[in-house]
C-alpha cells in the first residue's frame, strides 16, 4: 500500500493528475484517479473513455494529466488501451523503447464499462492485455445529465427512469459487472471505494503486478447525480460499504476474498436517506421498494460470505507459499 506520505509527496512533485479541472465539488472521481496513479510505481499511461473525467480534465488547450493520456471514444477505451499496450510490446520487442516497465491504466465510467464499452472490455480481457481497467462507477450517465445505466441500482430516480405517477425509479436491478469480468478468468479483479483508500491502494498494487488484465470496480459518489451534499462524498462511500450496498472484495485467479468486513451492518436507510435519487423511498411510502433492495443486498452478501469461506484455504496456501 502506498503510504499517505508517498501519495502526498507525489502530488507535490510530479502529479499524474493535477487540480484546476472542472469536475464538481465533492465528485468521487478525482480521489480515485489520484489514489490509483499514486499507487503505481514507474511510468504509466492513462487511457480514458468519454465521460465526466475526460470532458472535465482536458478542455483544450489545457490538460490535468501529468502522465501520457489518450481518449478516443466512449465505447472503446479497452480496445484503445489494448492497442497502446500492443504498441509497447511491439516496440519493446524490437528494442525501440527501453527503460522501466510502463503500466497502462484505463479510466472509464459505468456507462463506458457496463453498457456501451462492455464488448471492447470483454475482448481486451479475453486477449489478456497487461493493463489495469478502473471503472469509476457513479451508477448512471452523469456526464449527459443523469440517465439510467446498467449500473444504476433498482428504484433509483434518474432522468430516464423518473419517479412519476406510475414510475418508481429504475425498474431493473443493476448488473453484476465484477462477476462478468471474473467470468473472463483474468488474474485479478476487485471492488473498491475511495472511502477506504488504503484498501484501494493495496488493490491497485496487486492489480498491476499480475501478468495480464486486471479490473477495479470503484464506487464513485456524485453530488448532482445522486443528490447528496458535496461534504458527504466520502461519508456516503463509507456507508455504501458498511450497509453491504458496495462490499469490498477481491478475486485472485478466480478466488474470492472479502477485504473489509464492516463491524456492524448499518441500516440501508442511512445510505438511502442522504440521497435525493432515493427520496421516494424515504419514510413509510417506500417500504416495499426498500425491502426489495435490502433482499438484493442480503443475497449478494451471503453469496460473498460463502465464496470467501470456500476460498479461504486457497488464500492461506497462497500466503504460506509467498512467505
Amino acid at each position, binding site marked *: 500500500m502506498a503510504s499517505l506520505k508517498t501519495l502526498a509527496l507525489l502530488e507535490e512533485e510530479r502529479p499524474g493528475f493535477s487540480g484546476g479541472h472542472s469536475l464538481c465539488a465533492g465528485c468521487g472521481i478525482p480521489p480515485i484517479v489520484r489514489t490509483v496513479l499514486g499507487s503505481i510505481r514507474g511510468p504509466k499511461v492513462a487511457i480514458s473513455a468519454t465521460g465526466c473525467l475526460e470532458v472535465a480534465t482536458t478542455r483544450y*488547450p489545457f490538460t490535468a494529466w501529468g502522465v501520457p493520456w489518450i481518449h478516443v471514444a466512449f465505447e472503446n477505451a479497452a480496445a484503445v488501451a489494448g492497442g*497502446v499496450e500492443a504498441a509497447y510490446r*511491439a516496440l519493446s*520487442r524490437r528494442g525501440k523503447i527501453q527503460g522501466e516497465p510502463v503500466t497502462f491504466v484505463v479510466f472509464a465510467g459505468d456507462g463506458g464499462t457496463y453498457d456501451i464499452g462492455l464488448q471492447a472490455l470483454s475482448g481486451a480481457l479475453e486477449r489478456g492485455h497487461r493493463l489495469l481497467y478502473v471503472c469509476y462507477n457513479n451508477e448512471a450517465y452523469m456526464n449527459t445529465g443523469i440517465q439510467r445505466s446498467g449500473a444504476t441500482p433498482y428504484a433509483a430516480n434518474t432522468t430516464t427512469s423518473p419517479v412519476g405517477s406510475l414510475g418508481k425509479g429504475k425498474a431493473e436491478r443493476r448488473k453484476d459487472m465484477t462477476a462478468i469480468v471474473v467470468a473472463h478468468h483474468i488474474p485479478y479483479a476487485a471492488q473498491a471505494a475511495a472511502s477506504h483508500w488504503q484498501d484501494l491502494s493495496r488493490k491497485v498494487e496487486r492489480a498491476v503486478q499480475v501478468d495480464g488484465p486486471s479490473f477495479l470496480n470503484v464506487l464513485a459518489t456524485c453530488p448532482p447525480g445522486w443528490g447528496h451534499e458535496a461534504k458527504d462524498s466520502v461519508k456516503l462511500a463509507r456507508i455504501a460499504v458498511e450497509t453491504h450496498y458496495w462490499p469490498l472484495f477481491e478475486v485472485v485467479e478466480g478466488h474470492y476474498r472479502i477485504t473489509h468486513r464492516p463491524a456492524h451492518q448499518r441500516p440501508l436507510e442511512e445510505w438511502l436517506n442522504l440521497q435525493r435519487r432515493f427520496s421516494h423511498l424515504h419514510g413509510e411510502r417506500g417500504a416495499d421498494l426498500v425491502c426489495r433492495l435490502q433482499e438484493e443486498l442480503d443475497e449478494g452478501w451471503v453469496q460473498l460470505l460463502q465464496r470467501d469461506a470456500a476460498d479461504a484455504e486457497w488464500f492461506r496456501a497462497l500466503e504460506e507459499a509467498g512467505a
Partner: protein
Amino acid sequence: MAKVELALQVLTGAEATAHAMRQIRPDVVPVYPITPQTPIIQTFSRFVADGKTDTVLVQVESEHSAMSAAVGSALAGARTMTATASQGLALMVEVVYIAAGLRAPVVIAVGNRALSGPINIHGDHSDGMLARDSGAVQIYALDAQEAYDLTVMAPRVAEHARVLLPVMVGQDGFNVTHSAEPVALLPDEEVQAFVGPYEIPYALLDGNAPSSHGVFAMPDSYFELRHQMISAVEAAERVYGEVAEDYRRLFGRWLPALDAYRMEDAERALILIGSAAGTAKEVVDDLRAAGEKVGLVAVRLYRPFPHQALREVLAGVKRVAVLDRAASPGTYPPLFSDALGAVQGTQVELRSYVYGLGGRDLPLRAVHRAFRELLAPAHARIGYLGLVGEDDDGES
C-alpha cells in the same frame, strides 16, 4: 527503367496486399475477419506464424475495436496497419473519423464490398464512400499489382509530416481480392528502405514529454483543429504525387492520382474507380479501332480528390460519363459530384451512371451504351448500367 529485378508471382489482390504488409513489417496489426478482406489477414497471420514478420497481431473482437486499437497503437508510436471491408468498415467508421481528427497515420487495406441490406458479400464502393468525408486519404487499386504497390506506398503518405492521416487502400472485393494474376513483388529490403522508420510527433510512449491526445474541444477551438485536419487532407495530394514519383523513380512503376487511358484527343470519356477500368479499357480500344475518339480516366486517389488534375485531363473533352459503383440515394452519386466540382466553369458535360452494385458485372455492352449515349447532349437523369431492364438492348 526499373533498378531492381522483380520476381513475378501469381497472387490474388488479397495475397499481394498481405505480402506488402509482411515487407513493410508494421509493429502492430489489430484486425478482425470479414469477407472479402479475410484472405489478407489469413495470409498475414500465416506470415506471422511462420516467423516471416515479428509484427504483434491483435485479434480483436470487432472492427470497431480494430480501429480503436489501431489509433491507440499508432499514436503510441508504433507503425500500425489493419484491414477490413463492408459492414466492418461501417462499424469502424466512427473511429476512422476520430483517427483523422487525432492525426493517427493508420494504413487500412479495404476489400471494397457492398453494404447491407440485403446482405451481400460482393464488390462495390458503398463502404468506401461511407468513409468518404472522414478525413482518411482514399486510394483505389485497379488490379492486384496496384493493390500491392499502393499498400507499399501508403505508409509514406500516411506518416508524412504534412499529412499524418489514416490512409485507406481500396481494392474491389472478389474482382481484385480473390482474382489471381501475375504480381511483381519488390525485394523485402527495398520495401523496408522505401517506407523508412516510423516517426510521429508527440508519441504517447515518448517518456520524455507526456502528451494528451483526444482532448475536449469547445466551439472556441474545434473549428480550427478540424481545419488543420482538412488542410492536411488537401496536402496529401501533393505528398501522394511525391511518393508516386519516388516509386516510379526507384521501381519503374508509375501510379499517378489519375490513370488517363487514351485521353490524348478524346472527345468522349468515362471516369470510374477500380477494377472496372479493365473492362472499360477494352471498350475504349474497340471504339478507338473503329475511329472513335474516346478515352478513360480511372481515379486512384479519391480523397483528396485531384480536381485540378482531372480538369486538365478533361480539357478538350466534350462529354463525360461518370460511372459510380455506389449510390447516394436521392441525389447524384459521389464520384459524379466530385467530377462536377472539378469541371465547374468549363464546357465539359457530365452524365451520371451507377453500375455494379453488390457485385453485378459491368458488361461490355453497358460500357458501349454509356459511350453511345454520350453522342447525344447530356441530361440530368442518372443511368443504371447493368440493371435488369435498363441497358439490355441486345447491342454490345
